[in-house]
């Protein structure tokens, strides 16, 4: 008979082994799924994980890794901070959309002003937009004790409607011949989030993601706020006695994650996406939840996990065009990854022991 025994402390080895095992298990299960869909499983998995990095057209795909990874890492870092403290911001997708709207809104409002301060203003507006959207669940939780999971999630749907309203209404391109969608910011140099080094995929969002990783690493390891975050997650009662104010922590964690998600949206709309359109958001806010968990809520881990998820996005697109693999299969593949991670995590917190049958 097998018996589970709680470890006094989470195993360090398993903490880092679990994500690797989860990725392997997902490859196997994903392979089975692809086989069921009538594709060669080996070829499909290789296309997703190998082709973008070392394949024939890798020089084109590698920069995409940064482009797709940057928003995931930016959002994931913020979510990770909150999750550590037991504050569940599930609505990053909404904060991402609102950040894009406020950021692009500033750019579109001053069009065609050509000044150096346009882009920095947009960055600030994007962060503020995401922050403000995240403050709604934060303030409601602090003031009324409302569940932040449900409120932040409801606000995703509200933000999606707002995006549609903006793309069809106030932000519609006046020279767009009636098509929905805003002016293309890529054609407005003062507002364009262009590549810093041509051909590398390196835009300002990537820089911001890198700064966020370092910032979060220092915050968690070296700053009293980071200590409070970790303490509140692991021992809420002890945190209260140590003088941590839960309300302030909720406001801070949701605020930071909202601002980072807003930034991600702003960098996306002014760079790779280019314009405010109805289908602007592609679910980065939700995938970032997987990224945060896969990265063990640790900043360095989240950076690696973000790149891995970016890889599955790009590889998935290649598999879509080369092998005719449905886009939904990739979405399922990413969901599976989180499942396996949560399952394998059993070994991080528990030891499996063989129980000897006792004689009565």
């Amino acid at each position: 008979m097998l018996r589970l025994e709680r470890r006094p402390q989470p195993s360090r080895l398993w903490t880092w082994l679990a994500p690797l095992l989860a990725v392997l298990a997902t490859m196997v299960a994903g392979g089975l799924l692809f086989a069921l869909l009538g594709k060669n499983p080996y070829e499909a998995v290789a296309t997703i994980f190998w082709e973008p990095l070392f394949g024939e057209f890798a020089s084109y795909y590698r920069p995409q890794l940064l482009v797709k990874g940057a928003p995931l890492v930016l959002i994931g870092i913020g979510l990770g901070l909150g999750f550590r403290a037991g504050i569940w911001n599930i609505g990053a997708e909404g904060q991402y959309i609102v950040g894009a709207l406020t950021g692009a809104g500033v750019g579109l409002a001053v069009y065609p002003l050509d000044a150096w301060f346009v882009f920095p203003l947009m960055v600030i507006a994007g962060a503020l937009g995401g922050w403000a959207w995240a403050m709604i669940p934060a303030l409601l939780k602090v003031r009324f004790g409302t569940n932040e999971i449900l409120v932040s999630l409801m606000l995703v749907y509200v933000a999606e409607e707002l995006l549609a309203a903006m793309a069809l209404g106030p932000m519609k391109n006046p020279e767009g011949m009636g098509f929905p969608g805003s002016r293309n910011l890529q054609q407005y140099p003062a507002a364009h989030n262009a590549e810093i080094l041509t051909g590398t995929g390196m835009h300002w969002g990537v820089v911001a993601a890198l700064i966020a990783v370092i910032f979060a690493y220092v915050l968690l390891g070296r700053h009293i706020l980071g200590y409070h975050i970790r303490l509140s997650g692991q021992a809420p009662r002890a945190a209260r006695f140590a003088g941590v104010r839960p309300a302030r922590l909720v406001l801070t964690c949701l605020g930071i994650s909202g601002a980072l998600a807003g930034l991600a949206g702003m960098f996306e709309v002014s760079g790779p996406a280019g314009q405010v359109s109805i289908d602007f958001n592609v679910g980065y806010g939700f995938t970032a939840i997987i990224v945060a968990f896969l990265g063990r809520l640790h900043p360095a881990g989240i950076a690696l996990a973000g790149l891995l998820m970016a890889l599955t996005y790009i590889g998935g697109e290649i598999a879509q065009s080369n092998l005719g693999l449905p886009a939904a299969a990739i979405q399922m593949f990413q969901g599976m990854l989180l499942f396996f991670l949560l399952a394998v995590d059993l070994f991080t917190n528990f030891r499996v022991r063989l129980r000897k049958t006792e004689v009565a």
Partner: protein
Amino acid sequence: MDLSSINPVLLLASLIVAATPILVAAIGELVVERAGVLNLGVEGMMITGAICGFAVAVETGSPALGFLAAAAGGAALSGLFAALTQFALANQVASGLALTLFGLGLSSLMGQGYVGVKPPATPRLDIPLLGDIPVLGRVVFGHDLVVYLGLALVVVVWAWLKFTRAGLVLRAVGENHDAAHALGYKVVRLRLLAIGFGGACAGLGGAYISLVRVPQWTEGMTAGAGWIALALVVFASWKPGRVLLGAWLFGGVTVLQLNLQAAGIAIPVEYLSMSPYLITILVLVIMSADRSRAPASLGRIFHASG
């Protein structure tokens, strides 16, 4: 704008139809939460139920089989959540989110061949005499079987929780799983059953959207109904009767805003479409003052040591 084009009788009748999916899903989730488990995967199970039910109904031509398949599909998906939280002792919030993300992917994969297909119609019960009463007949007696099944579920769950021994044990497990375990009740087994029931209900609710309410299949068509169902349980303070009240309220808001859209009110469609979500938030804020009602073991991991 022409508000006179809104027919109050039809409005009430469609209110009940709009309320049914979230009512059924919320009643299932209420039982799960009363057992002390927080399953945030309702949205994922609903959308999976929606496509399972739709696919089977289209293939067999029988909506009844479709609804059965939807319940089975929802329950099967909830089995994944059950395995993660009850055996692998994983965090329930994370597992529920994983279930929703996975369910959304799974459903759009399964639904690829079904976009634009028309499902067989679910027949309305034609109750002789009762159905002919002028206003009441159409509003109360002119619906399909699932509507009445949903109402029956509310009564059954209420009575089961309040008057039966099994209901009492379920509540005990939800309030204090360690004490219930010490008394010899099978905590994990009971929770597995509750999670399965919740999954079946969510699947059924999802199929009601794809087979009756809309009726067709589009990706992500539940559009947050599962999350509204979760909010409904909080709104109801974990009481079945108030779930019904809440479901009608949300049904009413949904139907009213759709009717206002059709009547050509001078507010852009997008802002009207926001209203069900905003009302949900508003109601959550009002109700969250009363925190005492939540089952005490809700969301906590049970690990029998010994």
